[in-house]
């Protein structure tokens, strides 16, 4: 269900690079109820497309990406469904085969750039490590390529920074190093898990601009995991809104910002501060994610939803809406722009 209006370069698999189908992740612990963190999530990523996974903490967005990458702990975790990347289901690959693809075909960057770097290894060596792992090159050649990558991500004086350790460089620069590492082997898909959350606002803008330039500019696909709707507005082609482990609304970014249909999306948009004045007090969604009820018993968002009725607490909503704008809600907001916000907040670079 890639939305129209994004580039559709031909590729095996009918214009899809990654196709996640009915992905479910259940954590089981002896003596505790199994917990389903991700519940039958499906979405597609076309080559060159930027797909956003949006939701508040605990909605399953990071678990989704870790499951696709095969990085969840084996024990106590049940992953079901398919994640077809370029014709192969990543979830059925052997550990070794998956390792060969990670870093080479698909890469990931994480939220905290300091803790994601090995504190006792110089930056250049860390970038070179992934190159030596996936390309049969010698040490000197890998280091040369690493320096080239550091230069591409805008690190001044890369020759000197190569020999420095993570604690010696700034937060923004660390994230640049991680981006250089992730892109060193020219993957076709990059998953960015809240890459700007740990950064200062001005640095955030720089990192987003860099991602836009390097990833989007080179035709690499990007899955952007974030809770920041500003990031979504500036970068994503299509957006999936997650709540309680399920996708509750999926739309083109303009459709979503112009007319959110799901009450949760509407609430999220209303709680973004706006520079053009308007409301003085920010909207907030009452309750927390922990308040939700299992999807099997109704709509997980019902306890926090102003529009909830008895139906919502009895019956889990199924997909509705038109092709480009799908949602899962019994009482969607009207399609016209009666939502609390009126337009996309174009504040990202």
């Amino acid at each position, binding site marked *: 269900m890639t939305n129209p209006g994004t580039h559709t370069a031909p590729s095996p698999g009918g214009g899809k690079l990654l196709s996640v189908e009915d992905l479910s992740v259940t954590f089981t612990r002896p003596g505790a109820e199994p917990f389903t963190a991700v519940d039958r999530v499906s979405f597609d990523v076309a080559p060159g497309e930027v797909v956003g996974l949006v939701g508040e903490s605990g909605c399953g967005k990071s678990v989704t990406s870790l499951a696709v*990458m095969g*990085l969840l702990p084996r*024990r106590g975790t049940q992953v079901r469904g398919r994640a077809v990347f370029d014709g192969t289901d990543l979830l059925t690959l052997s550990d070794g085969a998956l*390792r*060969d*693809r*990670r*870093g*080479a075909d698909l*890469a*990931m*960057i*994480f939220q*905290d750039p*300091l*803790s*994601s*770097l*090995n*504190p*006792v*290894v110089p930056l250049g060596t860390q970038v070179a*490590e*992934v190159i030596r*792992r*996936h390309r049969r090159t010698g040490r000197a050649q890998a280091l040369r390529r690493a320096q080239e990558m550091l230069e591409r991500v805008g690190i001044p004086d890369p020759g000197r920074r190569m020999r*420095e*350790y*993570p*604690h*010696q*460089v*700034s*937060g*923004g*620069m660390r994230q640049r190093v*991680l981006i250089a*590492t*992730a892109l060193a082997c020219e993957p076709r898909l990059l998953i960015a898990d809240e890459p700007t959350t*740990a*950064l*200062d606002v001005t*640095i955030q803008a720089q990192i987003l601009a860099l991602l836009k330039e390097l990833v989007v500019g080179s035709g690499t696909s990007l899955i952007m995991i974030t809770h920041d709707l500003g990031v979504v507005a500036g970068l994503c082609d299509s957006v999936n809104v997650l709540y309680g482990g399920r996708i509750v609304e999926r739309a083109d970014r303009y459709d979503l910002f112009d007319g959110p249909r799901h009450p949760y999306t509407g609430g999220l948009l209303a709680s973004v501060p706006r520079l053009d004045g308007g409301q003085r007090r920010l909207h907030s969604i009452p309750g927390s994610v922990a308040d939700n009820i299992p999807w099997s018993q109704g709509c997980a968002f019902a306890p926090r939803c102003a529009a909830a009725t008895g139906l919502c607490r009895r019956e889990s909503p199924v997909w509705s809406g038109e092709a480009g704008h799908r949602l899962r809600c019994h009482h969607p907001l009207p399609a016209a722009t009666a939502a609390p916000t009126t337009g996309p907040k174009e504040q990202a670079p």
Partner: protein
Amino acid sequence: MTSARGGDAPAAGARAVPAGRSSTRTLQRLLRQPAFVVGAVITCVFVVLAVAAPLLAPHDPGAPLLLDQVRAQANPVPGPQDGFPLGADPAGRDLLSRLLVGARQTLIVGVLATLGGLLGGAALGLLAGVFAGKTDTLVMRVVDVMLAIPSLLMAFSIAALFARPNEWTLIVAIAIVQIPVFARLMRGSMLVQRGTDHVLAARALGVRPSAVVFRHMVPNAMGPVIVQGTLSLAVSILDAAALSFLGLGNPDDASPEWGQMLGGAQQYFNSYPHLAIYPALCIIVVALGFTLAGESLRETLDPRTRR
């Protein structure tokens, strides 16, 4: 090991200027602590004396040079005199030379036993930490059993297993006793590393498991283990002295050892206490030096006690 890790980015710009290598700053913090300075000075003096002992010792520690002065009843222990500042032992051998050369023996036994315990323990802890599950359970239960036996008692038992005790059986016995501490520490350290973001990031890049363990986990996990090593040196030295005192060390008293000298001094303790006091003092001071240095090292490197 790393500089203070800031949470959010306000400091991002400010931190861009490296404030010197973190190792130099750690050293500066250490040198401000009197306990570390005292411990380090004692340790250094001891190591220099031990290494240079053959050059510094005025006489051969095994040669009975003053044997002609020894009278079984009247004068069993020759007193201090020209060239023999501390006098001689009941066999007429120079006491100062024996203490100096004994330092060497103590250092060798202490260092090798600790190193053996560290390597053995780290290897076991690594196994347990990397292969969780059954391996972990098995290794840690064995370690628990070892910990259940009092360490000195276990060292005696192991040392007594060997038909002919010498300094190597001593080293082996003490090394085995040291294993549990290191194994536990290394396992905990490895488990912490397993959950870190940089290990996850390395795995996300397709780095092979062996490289993840040896390049990303072990170097970061070794810190506390090495610090424990400096603390264990003191324990090794004390244990070595205790075993030698009880005759489980090198029986050849031509190559002296402090614990063994202490054991030999027992029967003369009432009339000639200095025979026991000198080696005892050496043992206490050296063990104290290693403990002070190790303890302040541990405190300084522990992020929780850092101000």
